[in-house]
Protein backbone atom coordinates (compact mmCIF):
# COMPACT_ATOMS: atom_id res chain seq x y z
CA UNK A 1 0.00 0.00 0.00
CA UNK A 2 1.43 3.34 -1.00
CA UNK A 3 1.57 5.79 1.87
CA UNK A 4 2.03 9.31 0.57
CA UNK A 5 2.92 10.85 3.94
CA UNK A 6 5.70 8.35 4.62
CA UNK A 7 7.08 8.87 1.14
CA UNK A 8 7.11 12.63 1.50
CA UNK A 9 8.72 12.29 4.91
CA UNK A 10 11.47 10.06 3.59
CA UNK A 11 12.04 12.46 0.70
CA UNK A 12 12.51 15.40 3.05
CA UNK A 13 14.74 13.29 5.29
CA UNK A 14 16.85 12.62 2.26
CA UNK A 15 17.14 16.34 1.61
CA UNK A 16 18.04 16.95 5.23
CA UNK A 17 20.80 14.38 4.99
CA UNK A 18 22.37 16.30 2.10
CA UNK A 19 23.29 18.99 4.59
CA UNK A 20 22.95 21.89 2.19
CA UNK A 21 19.47 22.86 3.30
CA UNK A 22 18.26 24.73 6.30
CA UNK A 23 15.05 23.56 7.95
CA UNK A 24 13.25 26.51 6.40
CA UNK A 25 14.43 25.49 2.93
CA UNK A 26 13.16 21.97 3.47
CA UNK A 27 9.73 23.13 4.64
CA UNK A 28 9.56 25.38 1.61
CA UNK A 29 10.48 22.59 -0.81
CA UNK A 30 8.16 20.15 0.91
CA UNK A 31 5.27 22.58 0.52
CA UNK A 32 6.21 22.87 -3.12
CA UNK A 33 6.22 19.11 -3.56
CA UNK A 34 2.79 18.83 -1.97
CA UNK A 35 1.37 21.52 -4.26
CA UNK A 36 2.68 19.67 -7.25
CA UNK A 37 1.27 16.36 -6.03
CA UNK A 38 -2.13 17.86 -5.31
CA UNK A 39 -2.34 19.36 -8.78
CA UNK A 40 -1.49 16.03 -10.37
CA UNK A 41 -4.03 14.18 -8.25
CA UNK A 42 -6.67 16.71 -9.26
CA UNK A 43 -5.68 16.06 -12.86
CA UNK A 44 -6.59 12.40 -12.31
CA UNK A 45 -3.34 10.66 -11.42
CA UNK A 46 -3.03 8.23 -8.52
CA UNK A 47 -1.07 9.34 -5.41
CA UNK A 48 1.95 7.16 -6.19
CA UNK A 49 2.13 8.36 -9.79
CA UNK A 50 1.77 11.95 -8.62
CA UNK A 51 4.48 11.51 -6.05
CA UNK A 52 6.93 10.02 -8.52
CA UNK A 53 6.33 12.69 -11.13
CA UNK A 54 6.52 15.50 -8.60
CA UNK A 55 9.78 14.27 -7.18
CA UNK A 56 11.12 13.93 -10.67
CA UNK A 57 10.02 17.48 -11.51
CA UNK A 58 11.54 18.92 -8.38
CA UNK A 59 14.72 17.70 -9.89
CA UNK A 60 17.48 15.41 -9.04
CA UNK A 61 18.16 15.97 -5.36
CA UNK A 62 21.86 16.30 -6.00
CA UNK A 63 21.33 19.04 -8.54
CA UNK A 64 18.91 20.92 -6.31
CA UNK A 65 21.24 20.47 -3.40
CA UNK A 66 24.13 21.78 -5.43
CA UNK A 67 22.24 24.93 -6.37
CA UNK A 68 21.29 25.42 -2.75
CA UNK A 69 24.86 24.99 -1.67
CA UNK A 70 25.71 28.15 -3.55
CA UNK A 71 23.26 30.10 -1.42
CA UNK A 72 23.56 28.30 1.91
CA UNK A 73 27.28 28.49 2.31
CA UNK A 74 27.07 28.82 6.07
CA UNK A 75 28.19 25.31 6.89
CA UNK A 76 30.48 24.42 4.09
CA UNK A 77 34.06 23.76 5.03
CA UNK A 78 35.27 24.20 1.51
CA UNK A 79 34.56 27.87 1.85
CA UNK A 80 37.07 28.07 4.63
CA UNK A 81 39.78 28.98 2.21
CA UNK A 82 37.38 31.51 1.04
CA UNK A 83 36.36 31.03 -2.56
CA UNK A 84 35.80 34.72 -2.85
CA UNK A 85 33.68 35.90 -5.70
CA UNK A 86 35.06 39.40 -5.81
CA UNK A 87 38.74 39.71 -6.39
CA UNK A 88 39.27 42.26 -3.64
CA UNK A 89 38.39 39.76 -0.94
CA UNK A 90 40.51 37.20 -2.74
CA UNK A 91 43.50 39.51 -2.71
CA UNK A 92 42.99 40.24 0.95
CA UNK A 93 42.79 36.58 1.80
CA UNK A 94 46.00 35.94 -0.13
CA UNK A 95 47.69 38.84 1.66
CA UNK A 96 46.59 37.43 5.02
CA UNK A 97 48.14 34.06 4.29
CA UNK A 98 51.32 35.79 3.19
CA UNK A 99 51.34 37.81 6.42
CA UNK A 100 50.84 34.68 8.49
CA UNK A 101 53.81 32.97 6.87
CA UNK A 102 56.09 35.99 7.24
CA UNK A 103 55.04 36.64 10.83
CA UNK A 104 55.53 32.99 11.79
CA UNK A 105 59.04 33.08 10.34
CA UNK A 106 59.80 36.39 12.06
CA UNK A 107 58.49 35.21 15.42
CA UNK A 108 60.48 31.98 15.17
CA UNK A 109 63.64 33.85 14.23
CA UNK A 110 63.10 36.33 17.04
CA UNK A 111 63.07 33.43 19.48
CA UNK A 112 66.34 32.14 18.00
CA UNK A 113 68.14 35.49 18.32
CA UNK A 114 68.90 35.38 22.07
CA UNK A 115 70.65 32.08 21.33
CA UNK A 116 73.27 34.01 19.36
CA UNK A 117 74.11 36.00 22.49
CA UNK A 118 74.68 33.01 24.70
CA UNK A 119 71.10 32.53 25.78
CA UNK A 120 70.23 29.37 23.88
CA UNK A 121 67.71 26.98 25.31
CA UNK A 122 70.31 24.93 27.13
CA UNK A 123 72.32 27.78 28.64
CA UNK A 124 72.11 28.47 32.37
CA UNK A 125 69.37 30.88 33.37
CA UNK A 126 67.76 30.54 29.97
CA UNK A 127 64.65 28.78 31.19
CA UNK A 128 63.59 31.79 33.26
CA UNK A 129 64.29 34.11 30.38
CA UNK A 130 62.24 32.13 27.91
CA UNK A 131 59.29 31.41 30.17
CA UNK A 132 59.09 35.09 30.97
CA UNK A 133 59.42 36.27 27.38
CA UNK A 134 57.58 33.70 25.28
CA UNK A 135 54.38 35.72 25.01
CA UNK A 136 56.42 38.74 23.94
CA UNK A 137 57.87 36.80 21.03
CA UNK A 138 54.53 35.76 19.58
CA UNK A 139 51.65 37.95 20.74
CA UNK A 140 52.90 41.20 19.13
CA UNK A 141 52.70 39.47 15.76
CA UNK A 142 49.09 38.46 16.32
CA UNK A 143 48.33 42.03 17.36
CA UNK A 144 50.13 43.33 14.27
CA UNK A 145 48.20 40.91 12.05
CA UNK A 146 44.90 42.27 13.28
CA UNK A 147 46.03 45.87 13.16
CA UNK A 148 46.92 45.41 9.51
CA UNK A 149 43.60 43.70 8.85
CA UNK A 150 41.64 46.40 10.64
CA UNK A 151 43.71 49.17 9.04
CA UNK A 152 44.56 50.61 12.43
CA UNK A 153 45.73 54.20 12.56
CA UNK A 154 49.17 55.25 13.66
CA UNK A 155 48.08 56.05 17.20
CA UNK A 156 46.76 52.52 17.75
CA UNK A 157 49.95 51.05 16.36
CA UNK A 158 52.08 53.19 18.66
CA UNK A 159 49.96 52.47 21.73
CA UNK A 160 49.86 48.74 21.28
CA UNK A 161 53.45 48.19 20.21
CA UNK A 162 54.48 50.66 22.93
CA UNK A 163 52.65 48.57 25.52
CA UNK A 164 54.47 45.46 24.37
CA UNK A 165 57.82 47.19 24.50
CA UNK A 166 57.24 48.68 27.95
CA UNK A 167 56.11 45.29 29.25
CA UNK A 168 59.20 43.67 27.77
CA UNK A 169 61.53 46.23 29.31
CA UNK A 170 59.98 46.11 32.77
CA UNK A 171 59.80 42.36 32.94
CA UNK A 172 63.42 41.99 31.93
CA UNK A 173 65.01 44.70 34.11
CA UNK A 174 63.29 43.47 37.26
CA UNK A 175 65.76 41.50 39.31
CA UNK A 176 64.73 38.16 40.71
CA UNK A 177 65.94 36.27 43.76
CA UNK A 178 65.38 32.72 44.92
CA UNK A 179 62.75 31.28 45.37
CA UNK A 180 61.61 33.36 42.36
CA UNK A 181 58.00 33.56 43.52
CA UNK A 182 57.29 36.98 42.13
CA UNK A 183 59.06 36.22 38.88
CA UNK A 184 56.97 33.12 38.31
CA UNK A 185 53.82 35.05 39.14
CA UNK A 186 54.81 37.72 36.62
CA UNK A 187 55.43 35.08 33.97
CA UNK A 188 52.03 33.56 34.60
CA UNK A 189 50.09 36.80 34.51
CA UNK A 190 51.92 38.54 31.70
CA UNK A 191 50.45 36.35 28.92
CA UNK A 192 46.91 37.06 30.13
CA UNK A 193 47.61 40.76 30.33
CA UNK A 194 49.16 40.83 26.87
CA UNK A 195 46.33 38.73 25.46
CA UNK A 196 43.95 41.50 26.50
CA UNK A 197 46.24 43.94 24.69
CA UNK A 198 45.91 41.73 21.61
CA UNK A 199 42.18 42.04 22.21
CA UNK A 200 42.39 45.80 21.72
CA UNK A 201 44.14 45.21 18.40
CA UNK A 202 41.55 42.59 17.49
CA UNK A 203 38.52 44.73 18.25
CA UNK A 204 40.03 47.88 16.76
CA UNK A 205 38.49 51.29 17.18
CA UNK A 206 35.50 50.12 19.18
CA UNK A 207 37.55 48.37 21.85
CA UNK A 208 35.37 49.82 24.58
CA UNK A 209 32.14 48.54 23.07
CA UNK A 210 30.45 45.57 24.66
CA UNK A 211 29.80 43.94 21.31
CA UNK A 212 33.40 44.19 20.19
CA UNK A 213 34.60 42.71 23.44
CA UNK A 214 32.08 39.89 23.22
CA UNK A 215 33.48 39.11 19.77
CA UNK A 216 36.93 38.99 21.25
CA UNK A 217 35.71 36.58 23.94
CA UNK A 218 34.27 34.39 21.18
CA UNK A 219 37.52 34.68 19.28
CA UNK A 220 39.46 33.57 22.37
CA UNK A 221 37.30 30.48 22.77
CA UNK A 222 37.69 29.51 19.14
CA UNK A 223 41.44 30.20 19.34
CA UNK A 224 41.65 27.63 22.14
CA UNK A 225 39.63 24.98 20.32
CA UNK A 226 41.39 25.44 16.99
CA UNK A 227 44.75 25.90 18.69
CA UNK A 228 44.48 22.46 20.27
CA UNK A 229 43.56 20.93 16.92
CA UNK A 230 46.33 22.65 14.98
CA UNK A 231 48.91 21.87 17.68
CA UNK A 232 47.89 18.24 17.62
CA UNK A 233 48.53 18.30 13.89
CA UNK A 234 51.95 19.89 14.40
CA UNK A 235 52.85 17.24 16.98
CA UNK A 236 51.76 14.37 14.77
CA UNK A 237 53.77 15.75 11.88
CA UNK A 238 56.81 16.13 14.15
CA UNK A 239 56.56 12.62 15.55
CA UNK A 240 56.12 11.27 12.06
CA UNK A 241 59.22 13.13 10.85
CA UNK A 242 61.39 11.73 13.63
CA UNK A 243 60.05 8.24 13.10
CA UNK A 244 60.46 8.17 9.35
CA UNK A 245 64.00 9.59 9.42
CA UNK A 246 64.82 7.19 12.22
CA UNK A 247 64.03 4.39 9.82
CA UNK A 248 67.02 5.40 7.69
CA UNK A 249 69.26 5.97 10.73
CA UNK A 250 69.18 9.75 10.55
CA UNK A 251 68.54 11.41 13.86
CA UNK A 252 66.13 14.25 13.20
CA UNK A 253 65.67 15.11 16.85
CA UNK A 254 68.29 17.83 16.91
CA UNK A 255 66.62 19.57 13.99
CA UNK A 256 63.24 19.11 15.58
CA UNK A 257 64.38 20.61 18.85
CA UNK A 258 66.17 23.56 17.30
CA UNK A 259 63.83 24.52 14.51
CA UNK A 260 60.67 22.51 14.12
CA UNK A 261 59.35 23.03 17.65
CA UNK A 262 60.00 26.77 17.59
CA UNK A 263 58.82 27.61 14.10
CA UNK A 264 56.04 25.04 14.36
CA UNK A 265 54.70 26.61 17.53
CA UNK A 266 54.82 30.13 16.10
CA UNK A 267 53.17 29.01 12.90
CA UNK A 268 50.51 27.08 14.81
CA UNK A 269 49.54 30.14 16.82
CA UNK A 270 49.43 32.50 13.85
CA UNK A 271 47.64 30.06 11.57
CA UNK A 272 45.08 29.47 14.27
CA UNK A 273 44.50 33.21 14.57
CA UNK A 274 44.12 33.47 10.80
CA UNK A 275 41.77 30.49 10.58
CA UNK A 276 39.54 31.63 13.39
CA UNK A 277 39.30 35.06 11.82
CA UNK A 278 38.61 33.65 8.35
CA UNK A 279 36.05 31.12 9.44
CA UNK A 280 34.19 33.68 11.53
CA UNK A 281 30.50 33.39 10.66
CA UNK A 282 31.15 30.67 8.09
CA UNK A 283 31.36 27.76 10.48
CA UNK A 284 29.46 27.56 13.71
CA UNK A 285 31.52 28.24 16.82
CA UNK A 286 32.77 25.23 18.72
CA UNK A 287 33.42 26.67 22.15
CA UNK A 288 29.70 27.17 22.89
CA UNK A 289 28.96 23.62 21.80
CA UNK A 290 31.62 22.26 24.15
CA UNK A 291 30.34 24.52 26.92
CA UNK A 292 26.79 23.28 26.44
CA UNK A 293 27.90 19.67 26.54
CA UNK A 294 29.96 20.06 29.68
CA UNK A 295 28.02 22.54 31.77
CA UNK A 296 25.37 20.00 32.90
CA UNK A 297 28.13 17.49 33.65
CA UNK A 298 30.11 20.00 35.69
CA UNK A 299 27.01 20.95 37.56
CA UNK A 300 26.34 17.30 38.44
CA UNK A 301 29.88 16.79 39.73
CA UNK A 302 29.91 19.99 41.74
CA UNK A 303 26.55 19.35 43.33
CA UNK A 304 27.60 15.86 44.33
CA UNK A 305 30.87 17.27 45.73
CA UNK A 306 28.92 19.79 47.74
CA UNK A 307 26.52 17.14 49.05
CA UNK A 308 29.35 14.79 50.02
CA UNK A 309 31.23 17.65 51.68
CA UNK A 310 28.20 18.52 53.77
CA UNK A 311 27.31 14.93 54.66
CA UNK A 312 30.81 13.87 55.67
CA UNK A 313 31.49 17.22 57.31
CA UNK A 314 34.99 17.32 55.83
CA UNK A 315 36.28 20.77 55.08
CA UNK A 316 38.55 21.18 52.08
CA UNK A 317 42.31 21.15 52.66
CA UNK A 318 43.66 24.59 52.94
CA UNK A 319 46.99 24.26 51.22
CA UNK A 320 47.85 26.74 48.54
CA UNK A 321 47.53 24.12 45.82
CA UNK A 322 43.93 23.61 46.79
CA UNK A 323 43.29 27.30 46.73
CA UNK A 324 44.58 27.27 43.18
CA UNK A 325 42.33 24.30 42.46
CA UNK A 326 39.34 26.33 43.57
CA UNK A 327 40.53 29.23 41.43
CA UNK A 328 40.59 26.85 38.51
CA UNK A 329 37.12 25.64 39.33
CA UNK A 330 35.81 29.20 39.26
CA UNK A 331 37.67 29.94 36.04
CA UNK A 332 36.21 26.82 34.41
CA UNK A 333 32.71 27.66 35.53
CA UNK A 334 33.19 31.18 34.26
CA UNK A 335 34.37 29.78 30.91
CA UNK A 336 31.36 27.48 30.62
CA UNK A 337 28.91 30.21 31.56
CA UNK A 338 30.60 32.71 29.31
CA UNK A 339 30.56 30.56 26.19
CA UNK A 340 26.96 29.56 26.70
CA UNK A 341 26.18 33.27 26.93
CA UNK A 342 28.34 34.09 23.93
CA UNK A 343 26.26 32.01 21.53
CA UNK A 344 23.01 33.34 22.85
CA UNK A 345 20.73 35.71 21.06
CA UNK A 346 19.93 38.74 23.26
CA UNK A 347 16.30 38.71 22.22
CA UNK A 348 15.68 35.07 23.10
CA UNK A 349 13.52 34.40 26.16
CA UNK A 350 15.24 32.57 29.05
CA UNK A 351 15.95 28.96 28.17
CA UNK A 352 17.15 25.83 29.93
CA UNK A 353 20.82 26.77 29.62
CA UNK A 354 20.23 30.08 31.37
CA UNK A 355 18.84 28.27 34.39
CA UNK A 356 21.67 25.76 34.20
CA UNK A 357 24.13 28.64 34.14
CA UNK A 358 22.64 30.18 37.23
CA UNK A 359 22.65 26.82 39.04
CA UNK A 360 26.27 26.31 38.02
CA UNK A 361 27.31 29.73 39.29
CA UNK A 362 25.45 29.38 42.58
CA UNK A 363 26.97 25.95 43.29
CA UNK A 364 30.42 27.28 42.50
CA UNK A 365 29.87 30.27 44.76
CA UNK A 366 28.80 28.09 47.68
CA UNK A 367 31.75 25.71 47.30
CA UNK A 368 34.13 28.57 46.96
CA UNK A 369 32.60 30.37 49.92
CA UNK A 370 33.30 27.38 52.14
CA UNK A 371 36.84 27.05 50.85
CA UNK A 372 37.55 30.73 51.11
CA UNK A 373 36.44 31.10 54.69
CA UNK A 374 38.89 28.38 55.69
CA UNK A 375 41.66 29.87 53.58
CA UNK A 376 41.30 33.33 55.05
CA UNK A 377 41.73 31.81 58.45
CA UNK A 378 44.94 30.08 57.35
CA UNK A 379 46.25 33.24 55.76
CA UNK A 380 45.83 35.25 58.91
CA UNK A 381 47.54 32.52 60.90
CA UNK A 382 50.59 32.05 58.66
CA UNK A 383 51.19 35.43 57.10
CA UNK A 384 51.12 36.56 53.53
CA UNK A 385 53.27 35.27 50.69
CA UNK A 386 53.03 36.56 47.14
CA UNK A 387 51.61 33.25 45.94
CA UNK A 388 48.90 33.18 48.55
CA UNK A 389 47.98 36.78 47.91
CA UNK A 390 47.82 36.22 44.15
CA UNK A 391 45.72 33.08 44.51
CA UNK A 392 43.43 34.86 46.92
CA UNK A 393 43.12 37.90 44.68
CA UNK A 394 42.22 35.72 41.72
CA UNK A 395 39.63 33.97 43.79
CA UNK A 396 38.01 37.20 44.88
CA UNK A 397 38.01 38.62 41.37
CA UNK A 398 36.43 35.51 39.88
CA UNK A 399 33.97 35.51 42.74
CA UNK A 400 33.04 39.10 41.95
CA UNK A 401 32.60 38.25 38.30
CA UNK A 402 30.40 35.21 38.91
CA UNK A 403 28.49 36.89 41.73
CA UNK A 404 27.63 39.79 39.43
CA UNK A 405 26.49 37.40 36.71
CA UNK A 406 24.35 35.43 39.17
CA UNK A 407 22.73 38.61 40.44
CA UNK A 408 21.99 39.85 36.92
CA UNK A 409 20.61 36.45 35.97
CA UNK A 410 18.14 36.67 38.84
CA UNK A 411 17.15 40.19 37.85
CA UNK A 412 16.83 39.03 34.25
CA UNK A 413 14.63 36.07 35.15
CA UNK A 414 12.36 38.44 37.01
CA UNK A 415 12.11 40.38 33.71
CA UNK A 416 13.56 43.44 35.35
CA UNK A 417 16.38 43.87 32.83
CA UNK A 418 17.42 42.85 29.33
CA UNK A 419 19.91 40.11 28.70
CA UNK A 420 22.26 42.65 27.22
CA UNK A 421 22.98 43.83 30.79
CA UNK A 422 24.71 40.51 31.50
CA UNK A 423 26.91 40.87 28.46
CA UNK A 424 27.78 44.41 29.41
CA UNK A 425 28.71 43.36 32.91
CA UNK A 426 30.93 40.60 31.57
CA UNK A 427 32.67 42.68 28.94
CA UNK A 428 33.10 45.56 31.38
CA UNK A 429 34.68 43.18 33.87
CA UNK A 430 37.53 42.59 31.42
CA UNK A 431 38.91 45.89 32.74
CA UNK A 432 39.23 44.32 36.19
CA UNK A 433 41.20 41.41 34.75
CA UNK A 434 43.43 43.81 32.90
CA UNK A 435 44.21 45.81 36.02
CA UNK A 436 44.68 42.76 38.23
CA UNK A 437 47.04 40.95 35.86
CA UNK A 438 49.01 44.18 35.45
CA UNK A 439 49.25 44.56 39.22
CA UNK A 440 50.48 40.99 39.71
CA UNK A 441 52.90 41.17 36.79
CA UNK A 442 54.44 44.56 37.53
CA UNK A 443 53.64 45.67 41.09
CA UNK A 444 53.87 42.43 43.04
CA UNK A 445 57.62 42.08 42.41
CA UNK A 446 58.18 45.54 43.89
CA UNK A 447 55.86 44.89 46.83
CA UNK A 448 57.59 41.66 47.74
CA UNK A 449 61.14 42.78 47.05
CA UNK A 450 61.57 40.58 43.94
CA UNK A 451 61.65 37.38 45.96
Amino acid at each position, binding site marked *: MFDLETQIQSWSDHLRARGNFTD*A*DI*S*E*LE*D*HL*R*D*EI*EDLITAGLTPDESFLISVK*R*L*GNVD*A*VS*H*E*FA*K*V*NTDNLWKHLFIESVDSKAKKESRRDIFLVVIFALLAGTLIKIPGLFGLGFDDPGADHFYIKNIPLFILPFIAAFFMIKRKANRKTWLTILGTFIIAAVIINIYPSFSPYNTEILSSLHLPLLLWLVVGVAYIGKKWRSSQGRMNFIRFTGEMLVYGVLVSAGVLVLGAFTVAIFGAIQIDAEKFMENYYVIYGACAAVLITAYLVEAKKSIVENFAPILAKIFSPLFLAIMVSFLVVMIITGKSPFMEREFLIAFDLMLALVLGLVLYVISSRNDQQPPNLFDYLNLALILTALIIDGVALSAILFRLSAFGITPNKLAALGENLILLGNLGGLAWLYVVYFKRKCDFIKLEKWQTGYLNVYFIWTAVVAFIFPILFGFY
Partner: protein
Amino acid sequence: MNVSKDLIAASATPLILAILKENDSYGYAIIKRVKEMSENQLIWTEGMLYPVLHRLEEQQLIESYWNKSEAGRQRKYYRIKDAGLNELELQRQQWEVVHSALSKTWSKEE
Protein backbone atom coordinates in the same frame (compact mmCIF):
# COMPACT_ATOMS: atom_id res chain seq x y z
CA MET B 1 11.16 26.21 -28.06
CA ASN B 2 14.07 25.85 -25.73
CA VAL B 3 15.16 29.19 -24.33
CA SER B 4 18.88 29.18 -23.64
CA LYS B 5 20.09 28.74 -20.09
CA ASP B 6 21.84 32.09 -20.03
CA LEU B 7 18.74 33.94 -21.10
CA ILE B 8 16.64 32.14 -18.49
CA ALA B 9 19.12 33.07 -15.81
CA ALA B 10 19.29 36.69 -16.92
CA SER B 11 15.53 37.10 -17.08
CA ALA B 12 14.83 35.36 -13.77
CA THR B 13 15.26 38.42 -11.56
CA PRO B 14 12.99 40.81 -13.48
CA LEU B 15 10.35 38.12 -13.95
CA ILE B 16 10.26 37.24 -10.26
CA LEU B 17 10.17 40.88 -9.24
CA ALA B 18 7.41 41.60 -11.73
CA ILE B 19 5.32 38.69 -10.48
CA LEU B 20 5.79 39.74 -6.87
CA LYS B 21 4.85 43.29 -7.81
CA GLU B 22 1.41 41.97 -8.86
CA ASN B 23 0.96 40.33 -5.46
CA ASP B 24 2.78 38.25 -2.84
CA SER B 25 3.45 34.75 -3.98
CA TYR B 26 5.31 31.51 -3.24
CA GLY B 27 7.65 29.24 -5.17
CA TYR B 28 5.20 26.84 -6.75
CA ALA B 29 2.84 29.60 -7.83
CA ILE B 30 5.69 31.65 -9.28
CA ILE B 31 6.78 28.78 -11.51
CA LYS B 32 3.20 28.27 -12.67
CA ARG B 33 2.78 31.98 -13.33
CA VAL B 34 5.96 32.11 -15.41
CA LYS B 35 4.78 29.16 -17.43
CA GLU B 36 1.42 30.80 -17.94
CA MET B 37 2.82 34.23 -18.87
CA SER B 38 5.24 32.74 -21.37
CA GLU B 39 2.59 30.44 -22.84
CA ASN B 40 4.52 27.36 -21.80
CA GLN B 41 7.75 28.58 -23.36
CA LEU B 42 9.60 29.23 -20.13
CA ILE B 43 9.81 26.21 -17.85
CA TRP B 44 11.70 26.98 -14.66
CA THR B 45 13.13 24.32 -12.45
CA GLU B 46 12.86 24.48 -8.69
CA GLY B 47 16.60 24.10 -8.36
CA MET B 48 16.96 27.37 -10.20
CA LEU B 49 14.10 29.34 -8.68
CA TYR B 50 14.73 28.95 -4.95
CA PRO B 51 18.37 29.99 -4.97
CA VAL B 52 17.38 33.12 -6.92
CA LEU B 53 14.58 33.86 -4.45
CA HIS B 54 16.96 33.45 -1.53
CA ARG B 55 19.55 35.63 -3.17
CA LEU B 56 17.03 38.39 -3.83
CA GLU B 57 15.99 38.13 -0.20
CA GLU B 58 19.59 38.45 0.89
CA GLN B 59 19.95 41.53 -1.30
CA GLN B 60 16.94 43.01 0.50
CA LEU B 61 14.97 43.29 -2.72
CA ILE B 62 12.26 40.98 -1.45
CA GLU B 63 11.28 39.64 1.97
CA SER B 64 9.65 36.41 3.04
CA TYR B 65 7.12 35.43 5.68
CA TRP B 66 5.39 32.23 6.68
CA ASN B 67 1.67 31.94 6.34
CA LYS B 68 -0.95 29.22 6.20
CA SER B 69 -1.93 27.93 2.77
CA GLU B 70 -5.54 27.15 1.85
CA ALA B 71 -4.88 23.56 2.87
CA GLY B 72 -3.60 24.74 6.25
CA ARG B 73 0.08 24.02 5.58
CA GLN B 74 2.91 26.35 6.47
CA ARG B 75 3.90 28.14 3.32
CA LYS B 76 6.70 30.61 2.68
CA TYR B 77 5.47 33.68 0.87
CA TYR B 78 7.59 36.36 -0.73
CA ARG B 79 6.81 40.07 -0.86
CA ILE B 80 8.58 42.74 -2.90
CA LYS B 81 10.26 45.60 -1.03
CA ASP B 82 10.80 49.19 -2.13
CA ALA B 83 14.36 48.41 -3.17
CA GLY B 84 12.93 45.60 -5.29
CA LEU B 85 10.55 47.96 -7.04
CA ASN B 86 13.45 50.26 -7.86
CA GLU B 87 15.50 47.35 -9.11
CA LEU B 88 12.60 46.18 -11.27
CA GLU B 89 12.31 49.63 -12.83
CA LEU B 90 16.03 49.62 -13.51
CA GLN B 91 15.89 46.18 -15.10
CA ARG B 92 12.88 47.20 -17.17
CA GLN B 93 14.80 50.10 -18.66
CA GLN B 94 17.76 47.86 -19.43
CA TRP B 95 15.61 45.24 -21.08
CA GLU B 96 13.91 47.92 -23.12
CA VAL B 97 17.26 49.16 -24.37
CA VAL B 98 18.19 45.65 -25.46
CA HIS B 99 14.76 45.00 -26.86
CA SER B 100 14.58 48.20 -28.92
CA ALA B 101 18.08 47.70 -30.27
CA LEU B 102 17.28 44.16 -31.32
CA SER B 103 13.95 45.19 -32.83
CA LYS B 104 15.65 47.74 -35.03
CA THR B 105 18.13 45.30 -36.50
CA TRP B 106 15.50 42.64 -36.96
CA SER B 107 13.08 44.96 -38.69
CA LYS B 108 15.85 45.85 -41.18
CA GLU B 109 16.34 42.20 -42.10
CA GLU B 110 12.73 41.80 -43.07
